[in-house]
């Protein structure tokens, strides 16, 4: 064998033996500088804040990793938070009131000792106007940088708001209030990962920052004097950027090797029509980060809103009606312990059984399958 041939064989062997990406790993192909930012960002993500370092006065958690924790930082968690809104279907223009004037849409479940002493509350009270309260589980954020890098055009290519192809699936895009296409959040509201991260510091931990420099209110009322002793912003631009780098560069966990039952389940997944919404692969576009540029991401989502029927309906959010939800990505599903937006399903089978609306047809096909095929489909999902 020539020297060149030996080198090629060695490279192929090395690639074949490459360790599969594990939960919490960075994307492959990062530069040294990107890897350093990823590692530093993990430090911020794992940092526990206190009232002295900016926590609260209202908050859901004291660290990103307090919720995104299982089995590693960036993964899902068992925390469930409260969102509330009022849906006005007959209203012209915006039909959803996210109760921003009353402290919404996220109502924090914890307060600092200073706020408790001042107001005698243990969480942010829900306003009487809230007609619907939703539970929201903590999703993992693996592969979110790749989802952020998918061009709007690739998402819109799957949209079929009027179901012109007659398949019973009519995905439509969510929109933020400035008209940009939304893709993050269970209601596809938030256009970019950076905004999702920056907003989460304030909403989830009460950490003001250069993007969101003002604390939230208590049900719409200003915070009592002396309850927030830390000067704004409580986290600087560097902390925001590093946290964003960590989340952006987190790799999706590699699917398990699919053999036998799981491989057959992949075919069942297709036969039952699941890919109509859980689109197996999206492709990223151009991106300043090479590891995110023109990559296929096996996300199993179209990032569009779909009507999931009245039984799953809860709150509206911007354009999303109470029964509309963004197709949940399935990458990393094997690590998930509670399913659907509110965690009501404890197994993938339960989650499928609870699909309604546009998911009804696939659900019914699933129900009609022989037990072995149902098991194969679940084995496939458990391999992701």
């Amino acid at each position: 064998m020539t020297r060149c041939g030996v080198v090629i064989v060695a490279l192929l062997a090395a690639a074949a033996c490459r360790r599969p990406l594990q939960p919490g790993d960075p994307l492959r192909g990062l530069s040294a500088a990107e890897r350093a930012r990823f590692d530093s960002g993990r430090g911020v993500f794992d940092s526990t804040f206190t009232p002295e370092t900016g926590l609260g006065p209202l908050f859901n958690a004291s660290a990103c990793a307090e919720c995104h924790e299982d089995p590693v930082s960036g993964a899902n968690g068992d925390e469930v938070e409260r969102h509330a809104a009022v849906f006005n279907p007959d209203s012209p223009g915006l039909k959803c009131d996210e109760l921003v004037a009353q402290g919404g849409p996220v109502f924090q479940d914890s307060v600092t000792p200073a706020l408790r002493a001042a107001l005698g509350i243990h969480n942010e009270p829900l306003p009487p106007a809230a007609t619907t309260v939703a539970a929201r589980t903590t999703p993992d954020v693996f592969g979110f940088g790749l989802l952020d890098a998918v061009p709007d055009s690739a998402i819109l290519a799957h949209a079929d708001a009027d179901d012109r192809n007659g398949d019973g699936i009519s995905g439509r895009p969510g929109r933020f209030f400035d008209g940009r296409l939304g893709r993050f959040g269970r209601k596809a509201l938030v256009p970019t990962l950076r905004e999702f991260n920056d907003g989460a510091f304030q909403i989830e931990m009460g950490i003001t920052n250069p993007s969101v420099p003002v604390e939230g209110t208590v049900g719409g009322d200003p915070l009592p004097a002396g309850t927030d002793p830390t000067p704004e912003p409580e986290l600087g631009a560097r902390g925001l950027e590093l946290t964003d780098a960590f989340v952006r560069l987190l790799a999706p966990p590699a699917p398990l090797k699919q053999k036998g039952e799981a491989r057959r389940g992949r075919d069942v997944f297709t036969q039952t029509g699941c890919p109509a919404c859980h689109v197996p692969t999206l492709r990223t576009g151009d991106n300043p980060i090479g590891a995110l540029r023109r990559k296929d991401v096996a996300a199993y989502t179209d990032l569009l809103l779909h009507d999931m029927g009245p039984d799953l309906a809860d709150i509206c959010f911007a354009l999303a009606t109470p029964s509309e939800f963004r197709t949940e990505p399935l990458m990393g599903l094997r690590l998930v312990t509670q399913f659907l937006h509110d965690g009501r399903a404890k197994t993938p089978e339960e989650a499928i059984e609870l699909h309604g609306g546009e998911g009804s047809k696939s659900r019914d096909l699933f129900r009609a399958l022989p037990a072995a095929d149902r098991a194969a489909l679940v084995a496939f999902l458990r391999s992701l």
Partner: protein
Amino acid sequence: MHRLPLLSLLFAPLTLAAQQAAAPHDSVRGAIRAVDVSARTVEVAAGVGLALTVLRLQVPAGVPITDREGAQPEPIGLAALKPGDVVRATFGARPTGFVAYTIERVGRMEPTP
């Protein structure tokens, strides 16, 4: 420790603009939530991620309001603004609240623009 009442919360574009210094005003792009023609106010929904805000702007007579949805910008009245319109506004802070300098309607908040 700066506190502002609701409906006057600030958000990223404002801050970024302020940080770039010497900007004579702030700006916002968001969706009209409410228009009160008699009080000459509009409320604009915006925010960063799930940290949402609603900004109330006073709109004195004479403030230019423009429709930029068509090929040519056209002047329109305050009453022409409707909930769900996506607008871009410049404004400044006054003791009585925020006052609009310009408002441009740039689209509608719809699934398909």
